[in-house]
């Protein structure tokens, strides 16, 4: 009935000639980052100062930590919109613990465990019941933040211990804040897991074809469950950082972070449809968003106007390669 296709050699890793490296997404991001960096240093005399640059990183480290885990989740073809709500719930729980007199180690543990628990809840709903993650996490987003609102109402928790402030305000070495160091270490770990382990290969494979993976003996549901747990865990970590940095908890904490984290991931070249992306891209995108926000901040541009630039950046960076390819192929419009 049909010709048997010749057995095809499938390489473990595709060859990467120099040209493909030059025209890669990451190279485009580096170029964008350099342009923004240069423009910023001309636009403001305060920009090229190690401490300014260190301050800059606070703009993206917390969201960036979430984005790292979110990248894996999106590559596997799922999404988690509840991350900011997890941050809020974890922060609220830490606030309750403070009222009960908990010390710093307990607070950190509570933040991380609550995050992990929320992530596991999402993961169970998606994998056990086979529900679409985008809807499940819209639901849990309201649920988690809703619980924070029930507990706190219009109140706020304060009075975190002084030692707790280190996570969001302390410096590890010179201008390297704890947040930045943690982000860089986490990025390295996520890079290793995604690009150098069989687990990472499976994440890509699941994103490309979950059914084929299932038939190839990959435990699709278990890996997705782990990814949801990781995303929850990172949200818990981010919650510790942001709570420590602000020193107080309101139920509206981290509002809108989910969309910013997803913007980072997509800007970083991760396909929203799953199956493609890299950690390097996400880290670059995090830096770019930090640079844009901080640079515009130095120029006294209000935050809401910055968001226009972030939105435009997202659409333009995604659209540019498409337009360029079509122009080259001469079949635009």
């Amino acid at each position, binding site marked *: 009935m049909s010709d048997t296709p010749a057995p095809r050699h499938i390489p473990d890793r595709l060859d990467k000639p120099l040209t493909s490296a030059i025209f890669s997404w990451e190279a485009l991001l580096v170029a964008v980052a350099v342009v923004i960096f240069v423009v910023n240093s001309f636009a403001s005399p305060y920009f090229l100062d190690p401490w300014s640059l260190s301050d800059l990183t606070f703009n993206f480290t917390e969201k960036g930590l979430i984005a790292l885990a979110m990248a894996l989740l999106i590559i596997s073809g799922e999404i988690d*919109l509840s991350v900011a709500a997890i941050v809020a719930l974890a922060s609220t729980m830490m606030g309750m613990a403070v009222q009960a007199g908990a010390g710093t180690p307990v607070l950190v543990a509570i933040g991380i465990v609550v995050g992990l628990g929320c992530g596991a809840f999402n993961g169970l*709903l998606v994998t056990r*019941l*086979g*529900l*679409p993650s*985008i*809807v*499940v996490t*819209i*639901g*849990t*987003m*309201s*649920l*988690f*933040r*809703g*619980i924070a*609102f*029930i507990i*706190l*109402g*219009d109140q706020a928790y304060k009075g975190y211990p002084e030692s707790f402030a280190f996570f969001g305000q302390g410096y590890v070495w010179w201008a390297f804040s704890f947040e930045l160091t943690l982000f860089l270490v986490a990025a390295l770990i996520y890079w290793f897991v995604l690009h150098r382990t069989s687990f990472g290969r499976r994440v890509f494979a699941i994103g490309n*074809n979950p*059914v084929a993976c299932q038939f190839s003996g990959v435990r699709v549901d278990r890996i997705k469950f782990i990814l949801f747990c990781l995303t929850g865990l990172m949200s818990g970590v981010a919650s510790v950082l942001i709570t420590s940095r602000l020193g107080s908890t309101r*139920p509206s904490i981290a*509002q*809108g972070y989910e*969309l910013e984290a*997803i*913007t980072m991931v*997509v800007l970083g070249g991760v396909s*929203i*449809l799953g199956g493609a992306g890299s950690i390097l891209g996400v880290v670059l995108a995090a830096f770019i968003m930090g640079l844009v926000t901080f640079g515009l901040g130095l120029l006294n541009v*209000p935050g*809401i*106007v*910055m*968001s*226009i630039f*972030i*939105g*435009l950046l*997202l*659409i333009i960076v*995604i*659209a540019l390669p*498409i*337009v360029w390819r079509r122009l080259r192929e001469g079949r635009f*419009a």
Partner: protein
Amino acid sequence: MKSLLKYREIWLLAGILVLIGLISTRFPGFADPANLRQVFNDTAILMILALGQMVVILTRSIDLSMASNLCFTGMVVAMLNAAHPAIPIPVLIVIALAVGLVLGAINGLLVWRLNIPSIVVTLGTLTIYRGATFVLSGGAWVNADRMSADFINFQRVAFLGIPVLSWIALLVIALFFLAMTRTAIGRSIYAIGVNPTASVYAGIDVGRTKFVVFCISGMVSGLAGYLWISRYVIASVEVANGYELNIIAACVIGGISIAGGIGSVGGAVLGSLFLGIISNALPVINISPFWQMAISGGAIILAVVLNARGERRQGRIILRKAEAA
């Protein structure tokens, strides 16, 4: 399949009736026709928006920019009204529809011409449109005292005992019902959601239809923009912040499948009503309004779990994969 759809809406309707019954045990006046009319009127804007979101979701897309579009368009009409109070309200409504349409068409063009996933496009325009509102207004508010009396009262005038706002919602519901069940475009929207590849072979222009649905959701957001501003009599950058998720929640509770192709006008209306009843009932039965978010979150999850049972039809997943290949 048709009986299945009917079954789902009847389920939801039954749920709403039970809910009203439960609320009535604690607050007897709730089921009063006058109060229910009030609840409908309070939910009218959400219904209009949910219908716009529904047509987008039916084609396997999503529009996250609706609330920002609403905010921008609302600011445009409010500033127009403040500067030129003489412009009659029907003209302002046409302007609101047109501005909303343009913003929706931008989304639609990016999705249609550049093939960028709608979630990415509208994630971008969500921030852009709200930011543009700030640029347009310079961060200033338009307060009630700068709006003309007509602008504020137009939707409050009672006609046959029902406010104009409710009439507009009823008109929109009727239009959507006719469009979805009696026109070619309505049927194409369902066809694309069920099977995009087969739709192409059936002669449907998938890209252009997606463009059209984004235009529809944009127009609807524009209309809602005027209605929202004149109802809450303040136009600011913060208007309807985060509301896009309420709209999607109404659709999900109404049984509209995020995977496309499944959902109805009745579902979107009932899903909105469900949320509207909860937000109206909480204060009168002495539950803190802070519970509302968690309750609607729980309702969404419950709705998804229940809907997933009906959706798990054989063959569907195979078709979806064939299309991706």
